[in-house]
């Protein structure tokens, strides 16, 4: 047996078959060259690069510029450009120009124009949806900004729903998202830097921060991590998140993913850094602590008492989700004397005719519930209601009648599953749902002792986590000066400080308030 294992482990990995790759050295050297002043040659080069003719949406428009008495060519990809703009501001204005200026800048009337010489740079701009204008006799390309990517408009937030507060959510266009944030933070110190993070697809990430608040060290750390990736393509923020987070195998998330611009901007104002990307209807907020996953934006929009009431409810829900199944197993298997006699008899009588041990019962139901959740998420909407019927009837009613599970287990698991929905953040939701299984296993092996031991281990783990250098449970432990917005929030005019664990350049965000007197 042992030798077999040893063999399995020691089995040498077979040498991988070599990839058959084609060298792109020729293309690279071509792209490094500068544009020549001969229009024909330039046209040939770009026709080769873009496979004009084969490539359906790449347009090479040649024409004669009357004012300069020269031939010219316009290159653009018509699916990502605004053809109306091209007609209005470029072609029409060139043909109808009656002035005397010989400069292209004066003839063309597009708002953005710049000169580029290297072929590679021209390509980047064309791929971004701009048009390139080549003129015979000039060794530069004029880049005219006419890009127009297709996408949906601004819609309501779907995953982080609030009743009281702004409803708009990020969409897949980074420009719109930045605009949504600028709408909320009208200051010149809001900086939008962009970094290209992938080599082939050239995906761009926008780094947003307030330059007179953000901690420089944190900022450079973030930039460093963004530049580190050596990858062909990073499609969106969810993929980027996994590349830059502190511990990829961690059970708990360390970067906050939010689709609400109001949340992102309030984090920005506290000195956090926000990342945006095209193709992601959300933003990444970093560093993130446990509390940023636990909170919702509505906690602050609601009045002090109401907001804290929902916090208390959410906390309770989190503990119920985490502990209820594990507690049920621990108590019924090891500490039956803890139950009130009537409940003990009730559980005992229903368990008597059930075939499986309590642990198996609970696992069976937990598994079924997770299945309903997952299937309900993936099911095409026309057959959605079926899930409800199947789930409720088969699992609830029929399983009990068939003596597969006892009704109390159905209640326990359903309660745990229901309360898990109170945790709004998807990542934290997963973390809690997964850690529940660890607790159930330890409770089934060692009773309440195992449950508490595993819970303590979980706490140790949480305390050991860090997100971009910030302890996961800060500012609760270790303690930092902050708005003290952790489990519960304080009165709004007592939240005077930005979170100290971010080490912002400006700590105070509100003036001193003497007792009982409100500001303003």
């Amino acid at each position: 047996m042992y030798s077999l294992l040893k063999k399995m482990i020691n089995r040498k990995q077979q040498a991988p078959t070599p990839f058959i790759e084609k060298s792109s050295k020729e293309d690279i050297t071509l792209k490094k060259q500068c544009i020549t002043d001969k229009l024909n040659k330039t046209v040939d080069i770009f026709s080769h690069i873009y496979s004009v003719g084969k490539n359906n949406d790449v347009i090479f428009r040649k024409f004669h510029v009357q004012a300069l008495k020269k031939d010219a060519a316009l290159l653009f990809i018509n699916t990502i450009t605004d053809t109306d703009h091209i007609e209005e501001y470029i072609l029409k204005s060139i043909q109808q120009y009656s002035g005397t200026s010989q400069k292209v800048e004066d003839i063309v009337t597009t708002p953005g124009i710049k000169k580029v010489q290297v072929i590679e740079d021209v390509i980047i701009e064309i791929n971004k949806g701009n048009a390139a204008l080549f003129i015979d006799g000039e060794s530069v390309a004029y880049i005219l900004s006419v890009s127009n990517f297709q996408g949906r408009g601004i819609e309501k937030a779907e995953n982080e729903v609030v009743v009281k507060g702004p409803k708009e959510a990020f969409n897949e266009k980074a420009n719109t998202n930045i605009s949504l944030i600028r709408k909320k933070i009208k200051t010149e110190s809001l900086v939008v830097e962009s970094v290209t993070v992938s080599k082939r697809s050239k995906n761009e990430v926008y780094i947003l921060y307030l330059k007179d608040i953000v901690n420089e060290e944190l900022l450079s750390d973030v930039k460093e991590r963004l530049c580190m990736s050596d990858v062909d393509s990073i499609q969106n923020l969810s993929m980027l998140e996994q590349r830059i987070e502190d511990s990829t195998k961690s059970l708990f998330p360390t970067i906050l993913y939010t689709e609400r611009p109001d949340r992102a901007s309030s984090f920005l104002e506290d000195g956090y850094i926000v990342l945006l990307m095209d193709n992601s209807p959300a933003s990444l907020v970093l560093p993130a602590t446990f509390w940023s996953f636990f909170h919702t934006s509505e906690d602050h929009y609601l009045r002090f008492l109401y907001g804290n009431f929902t916090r208390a409810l959410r906390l309770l829900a989190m503990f119920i989700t985490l502990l209820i199944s594990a507690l049920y197993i621990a108590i019924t298997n090891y500490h039956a004397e803890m139950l009130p006699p009537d409940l003990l008899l009730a559980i005992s009588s229903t368990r008597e005719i059930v075939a499986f041990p309590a642990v198996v019962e609970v696992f069976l139901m937990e598994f079924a519930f997770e299945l309903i959740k997952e299937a309900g998420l993936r099911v095409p909407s026309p057959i959605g209601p079926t899930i409800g019927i199947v789930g409720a009837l088969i699992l609830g009613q029929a399983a009990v009648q068939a003596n597969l599970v006892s009704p109390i287990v159905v209640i326990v698991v359903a309660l745990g599953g229901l309360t898990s929905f109170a945790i709004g953040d998807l990542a934290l939701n997963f973390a809690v749902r997964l850690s529940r299984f660890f607790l159930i296993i330890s409770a089934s092996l060692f009773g309440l002792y195992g449950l508490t031991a595993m819970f303590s281990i979980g706490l140790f783990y949480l305390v050991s986590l860090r997100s971009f250098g910030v302890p996961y449970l800060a500012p609760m432990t270790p303690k930092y000066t902050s708005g003290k917005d952790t489990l519960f929030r304080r009165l709004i005019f007592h939240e005077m400080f930005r979170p100290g664990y971010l080490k912002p350049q400006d700590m105070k965000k509100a003036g001193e308030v003497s007792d009982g007197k409100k500001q303003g």
Partner: protein
Amino acid sequence: MKKLLWILKSVIILLLLVMISGCWDQMEVDRKAYVVGIGLDKGKKEKINVTYLISNPEYASQQGGNTNEPATEIITFEANDLITSRNIANSVIAKEISYDMLSVIIVSKQLAKDKNFIRWMYDSTKDREIKRNTAFLVTKEKASSFIEQNEPKLETRPHKYFTLIFEHAGETGLIPRSDLMRYFRITEADGDLFLAALGTNQQTNQERSNGHLEAGEFKIKGKTNKTNLMGSAVFKEGRMIGELSGEETRLSLLLNDTVKSPNYTTTFQDPFNKDYDITAKIIKNKRNNVSMQQMNGKTILNIKVPLTLEVLTDHSMVNYAKNKEKRNQLKRYFTTKITEKLNKLVIKTQKDFKGQPFGWSLQGRKYFLTVDEYEKYDWMKSYPNMEVNMSVEIRFGEFGRQTDLPKIKQVRD
């Protein structure tokens, strides 16, 4: 590769750890037989007869509730002690015997009076599952026959019956608060007497007025359970030495500050018309004032008992609420009556029991400077020779919901 081996090894070790050490006292709830009451009787030689009253979970439950199984199973057998009895019972009972739901320990008078009784009682401190708040009941007949013949008509689940009857009989003061914790505490402190609830389901033919009854003397007719709990068994140094009637138990509770004193209604002969009785509710809100004096080698105990009385019937139509003079007369009457009764009880404890069940040793302890001094004084031995001065202070509460009564002459007119 080395890392993989390391991971594999640690996983195996962890699995072994879990397999070897885990689940050591795991037991599914449905595999236990829940003992609700244990009856103890004297057996042959130094053995005891143990009776188990086992509750049937299936009875009256929604799920398996359609069974014709009885609510309880009762089994009696001889054993050496309470610990071995758990295993012996399993030769008859299929499920593992569990004391998780144990709510009462019932002991026959015969065993309680045995000189070795305390030895068996201390077995219950050894078992992990026996809780100290388990009620303690002494029966006049054999515990096994008490359990067998106890047939509550409405609370067919035995744990419910015992919890409720101890709670409500205790509230009305007819039985004392008696549980294992009190038994052990008072026995070990060796300064007071322990009062245990007394019960029976045999009827005797003695006739006494209400309140003076002992268990079994209360006449009931109709279709009901024959069991009644009334009065108390007096334990000195862990062994039963006597009995107190229902009224004496009530009075003893008035003098005892270590228990929550009950509010109960009782009757006195009407001082204004001998034909009628007055029903009064006695409420004790304040603690007694117990002080101790040493004089010429004699110890004097001064006890002040503050009571609130609510006069609830007024058959002689005196209208106490409106009549100050009559009210004062009534107050004097009550004071002398109650003081008389209390003094009678104190004398009984001094003469018959040579100890007191009122917890006074705790209140008297503060009059000694050191523990040694207190121990040397030996409260239990000194008590019979103490002079006890009882004074009762009565305050009237309300005179019923409606205080006014119509003039009887006007009504008859």
